């Protein structure tokens, strides 16, 4: 399973099966109680941090979403009023929220297939087509992933600038005028998607390369001998055997895109006319600009339910296809 951890494997000789943890070695009985105590002591720091800064806030968001938690409650949380499902009911009559939901869906529906598709193509090309400069290409495609998204978004804003940006320059070389990408209601979201694809293709590529490396070469060898074409080999062997990786990559990319925040925050501030207002940006504004924290909490939970639903659906769909 963990083929990439040879270094950590250290002293163990390849092929030696790890002895089961419950193996009946001597001295086990006295160490049992010690291990129990030690196990909890070693877990405690994480569990304390987890409880205070994650579990508690997650539950608190749920509770807040049923209240009219506002600015004054930041200092006096207990004075917030319980209002039942009012926030949730209001959300679905709120055009702005529905628009942000639609925008986020648009971003995911267009962005995820593009990211996965391009990532897969690059990985296959890197894995089969070339042997020299492989690291060079891999580094190049992965570089955008590690860079600070705020800085990169600032750069892209300038790249897309209709008068003095990079794209404008390319357009003028062939005698066209560049449209105002980020200022146009129809082009702003596609522009953000292009940037997101540019930024995330590297992650998907690395996952697919790892997946491709794990396919035993014997299988391909056999297909070759049977006279399979490159395409047949890809359809018949690479894609099916890559399915677990495909599943993982699709799920994490979808989750990431459903949470999209920085790109619209820095590049468009949600505009023009809310055409790039995403759920996360909407939630941030309602919560931290207007201090409608109860309402924003309800948004956070709607988004969470959507994420869980889509993730479960993806797991089902992709699992079923295997059989």
């Amino acid at each position, binding site marked *: 399973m963990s083929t990439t*951890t040879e270094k950590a494997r250290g002293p163990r000789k390849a092929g030696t099966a790890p002895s089961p943890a419950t193996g009946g070695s001597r001295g086990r009985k006295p160490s049992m109680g010690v291990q129990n105590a030690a196990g909890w002591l070693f877990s405690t720091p994480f569990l304390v941090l987890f409880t205070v*800064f994650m579990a508690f806030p997650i539950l608190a968001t749920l509770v807040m979403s049923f209240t009219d938690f506002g600015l004054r409650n930041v200092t006096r949380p207990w004075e917030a009023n319980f209002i039942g499902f009012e926030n949730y009911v209001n959300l679905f009559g709120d055009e702005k929220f529905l628009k942000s939901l639609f925008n986020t869906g648009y971003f995911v529906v267009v962005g995820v297939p593009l990211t996965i598709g391009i990532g897969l193509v690059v990985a296959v090309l890197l894995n089969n087509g070339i042997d020299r400069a492989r690291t060079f290409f891999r580094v190049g495609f992965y570089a955008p992933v590690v860079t600070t998204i705020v800085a990169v978004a600032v750069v892209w804003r300038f790249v897309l600038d209709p008068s003095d940006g990079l794209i404008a320059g390319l357009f003028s070389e062939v005698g066209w005028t560049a449209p105002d990408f980020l200022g146009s209601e129809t082009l702003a979201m596609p522009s953000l998607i292009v940037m997101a694809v540019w930024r995330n293709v590297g992650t998907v590529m690395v996952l697919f390369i790892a997946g491709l490396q794990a396919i035993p070469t014997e299988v391909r060898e056999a297909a070759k001998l049977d006279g399979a074409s490159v395409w047949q080999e890809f359809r018949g062997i690479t894609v099916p055997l890559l399915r677990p990786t495909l599943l993982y990559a699709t799920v994490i990319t979808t989750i990431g895109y459903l949470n999209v925040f920085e790109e619209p925050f820095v590049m468009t501030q949600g505009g023009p006319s809310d055409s790039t207002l995403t759920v996360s940006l909407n939630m941030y504004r309602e919560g931290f600009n207007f201090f409608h924290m109860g309402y924003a909490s309800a948004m956070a939970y709607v988004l969470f339910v959507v994420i869980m639903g889509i993730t479960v659906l993806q797991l089902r769909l992709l699992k079923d296809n295997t059989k």
Partner: protein
Amino acid sequence: MSATSGNAAVEPLKSDAPPTPPKNNGGTTNDRKNNGGKKNNGGQRNVSRRLVYVLLSLGLLVMSAPFLWMGLSAFKTQSELSASPPVWIPTEWTLENFRQLLDKLDLPLYFMNSVIVAVLVTVSNLVFCSMLGYALAKLNFVGRNKVFGLVLGALMVPGNLMLLPLFVLMSKLQLIDSYAGLVLPFAAGAFGVFLMRQFMQSIPDELLEAARMDGASEWYIFWRIVMPLVKPALATLSIFTFLGSWNNFVWPLIATNDPDKYTLPVALATFATDPNKAGGSNGMLMAGAFLIVLPVLVVFIALQRHFTQGIATAGMK
């Protein structure tokens, strides 16, 4: 999948050196290539290989274009920056954008804030995630599976879900605008636990049993035996955590009001989105982006192997 076939498949990625001798029935990647060359379709293969290089190079050009544009624009003069159609390469390289930016923004301060927060987050993750990773991988304690389930659950919860109460909590604790407020929510991440557990599972139990029989305490075993053995994993985790913190934006944006506590991304975003920024030009923004992105790129290129290893390990499950 057996460990041996896995090794054979991974090996060619690491270097162009000949792969491990094909001890099992199958051939390796190189064998296949040689066979292909001997067949008549060798010529066709060459053409397609050249096509692959062309495609990849074009892709790489697109991928690096924004970085090149940033790097070039940061050194352009004001007139070249606003020229329409744009100037590709500055005729007269200037540091004016950097000088103006440093006048406007206290970048050394934000840089230090980013470094302090990232170092604290990294160190605490190394310690706490390793501890729990060790417990989950090597200690047989009651409730272990429940704790592991918690970690997996934590991996899946989106950060948005806790921002609002976290802000309220930090306000109550008076930790807004403090390093503690910036660090604590990220002091121990589920990803780190998962990564460390994956690596520590491969340490042979016999080694730990031997130490236990010699009377070593669990802490000694963890600190003196296990930790040195997982140095590659610690390196991977350090890089990921440091960069994650360096690039983090949403929480520092929320947890800081006082500009003296801004981290670099918050300072740059605040500058970039300020509707009445007095004279903040594209050149200054490119200079700022350049200063934030350059160290990250350099570190990444120097340590790129650890990145791919970390991603691949996380994706194994």
